[in-house]
């Protein structure tokens, strides 16, 4: 198994944290992982993304020019990354905020109302958790729900750990969503 | 005679600053040259020395030391 993942959205959506959460969970289950955030000036432009590789064997290149999985949280990110997804790859897009349908037909496209799921569980800030919950439902070999829940304690800063109950609810709600 | 400057003439660079600070004007320059080829500091009247140390303190080259005679 080797998945090359892009998680992209706007700054504040927690896409970089979502990538780290996935990495910690997968690492603790024995996988090789790497995570490269977009950083610095790029982040100030309002878009943020991270490149995540999760693999059964040692990772050579940690870069993700052609993702096998893209988690896209806003419209500009869809424009930027849709064409780059590997044929046969997976696109999870946040249809709560993205007002158009992806155009690719050679990939699996999953419509996820990430913000709606988050808000239904009582938070307007856990759309990233919905995305991760959905991803591991579709690709359980990346990491288990248990591992992700455990990883929350490491990935989330102490200041925000009080929201973990809601994070877990959102993870699970998205995990079992249609 | 209270004391006097002891002048290490070969180290003197001949700047003459000691001449200018002496309150009793007993510091002067030699008519001959030292090893460095410059006129050097001399005390022309040790009897008048007040042991004020001004010449020594102003000397940039640690040429002058000052001794004071013990009473008795």
């Amino acid at each position, binding site marked *: 198994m080797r998945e090359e993942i892009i998680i992209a959205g706007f700054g504040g959506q927690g896409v970089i944290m979502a990538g*780290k959460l996935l990495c910690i969970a997968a690492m603790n289950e024995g996988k090789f992982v790497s995570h490269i955030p977009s950083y610095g000036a790029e982040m100030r432009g309002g878009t943020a993304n991270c490149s995540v590789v999760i693999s059964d064997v040692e990772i050579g290149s*940690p870069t993700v*020019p052609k993702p096998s999985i893209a988690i896209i949280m806003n419209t500009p990110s869809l424009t930027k990354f849709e064409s780059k997804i590997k044929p046969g790859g997976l696109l999870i897009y946040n249809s709560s905020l993205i007002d158009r349908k992806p155009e690719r037909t050679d990939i699996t496209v999953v419509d996820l109302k990430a913000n709606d799921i988050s808000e239904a569980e009582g938070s307007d800030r856990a759309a990233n958790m919905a995305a991760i919950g959905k991803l591991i439902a579709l690709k359980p070999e990346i990491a288990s729900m248990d591992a992700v829940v455990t990883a929350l304690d490491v990935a989330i800063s102490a200041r925000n750990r009080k929201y973990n109950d809601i994070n877990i609810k959102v993870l699970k709600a998205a995990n079992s969503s249609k | 005679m209270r004391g006097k400057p002891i002048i290490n003439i070969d180290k003197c660079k001949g700047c003459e600053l000691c001449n200018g600070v002496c309150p009793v004007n007993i510091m002067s320059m030699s008519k001959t040259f030292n090893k460095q080829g410059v006129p050097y500091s001399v005390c022309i009247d040790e009897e008048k020395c007040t042991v004020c140390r001004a010449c020594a303190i102003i000397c940039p080259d640690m040429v002058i030391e000052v001794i004071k005679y013990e009473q008795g």
Partner: protein
Amino acid sequence: MGKQILMKGNEALGEAAIIAGCRFYFGYPITPQNEIPAYMSRRLPEVGGTFLQAESEIAAVNMVFGASAAGARVMTSTSSPGMSLKQEGLSYLAGAKLPCVVVNIMRGGPGLGNIAGAQGDYFQATRGGGNGDYRHIVLTPASVQEMAELTVLAFDLADEYRITVLILGDGYLGQISEALTLPEPTGKVFEKPWALTGAKGREPNKIASLKLVPDHVLEEMNLSLERTYNEISSRECRSESYLTEDAEYLLVAYGTSSRICRAAVNELREEGVKAGLFRLITAWPFPAAALKRASLKAKKILTVEMSLGQMIEDVRLSVDNPERVDFYGRSGGMLPETEEIKRRIKAYGN
């Protein structure tokens, strides 16, 4: 083996410095290495150390000079434009034979360039950007684990040879998070009788690079430095040869570009192409002998850099039949692509 944690390259480097006994850090913010000063500012007070944000890169490297002269294990870090400013200090450190660790997390240039990872400072690092006849050891990590391990090594090498050890990473290595097993301290102790600690019960120590008179003393010092450099060259070359034994096509790279090359080698091997990778771990001393060995069976040698061709000069100088050496690089913060490497290697076969 210790527990694995997910850690960013810059932070792993910072923690490794503390493991190595570094208790003094002076630096000035610049992306993409800002996590290093931030990490040190948090961690050093916890271990009784000192973090100081300097007024400039120039001040920072000179604070390093002072701290090293006082006998401490000390580090500074920066990224490419800041490294240019530090060159003055590096030359003085070399002249005064002071050990320290300097980190350059390279970004795109010239000038202010951009903040993406690049490898355009190879010449500056290996040829020396400051004035005079000097060298410093240049370590080139390629993973978070190596960022940590080479940092621990760097402090020992610095003290052993009284030299600056430069850790030459790039923005991607600084920013990437990977699993890390924290290295153990080596426990090596280096006496520093030359350190400025006050002339109590000994003759005063003087630390200086100025050698005005008599005429020959500077040359003597330079020759003594050269002896040290020769000793380092004979003892401290480090590299990794990956599938090079039978390699008909040899990739040569370091740092992040070596990761991309490794992926290319793996894919080429799956397709039956005998490709291999020679990866630098020290850029100075350049592991010429090991490269020569690794290149024995190679029909073509492809140097891959995140620059427009700097290391390639050392590659050409190291191998027989240097006309075999070809180049592929991207610059300005762009990354070489696995597909392009494969395409070129396959084209050689035709």
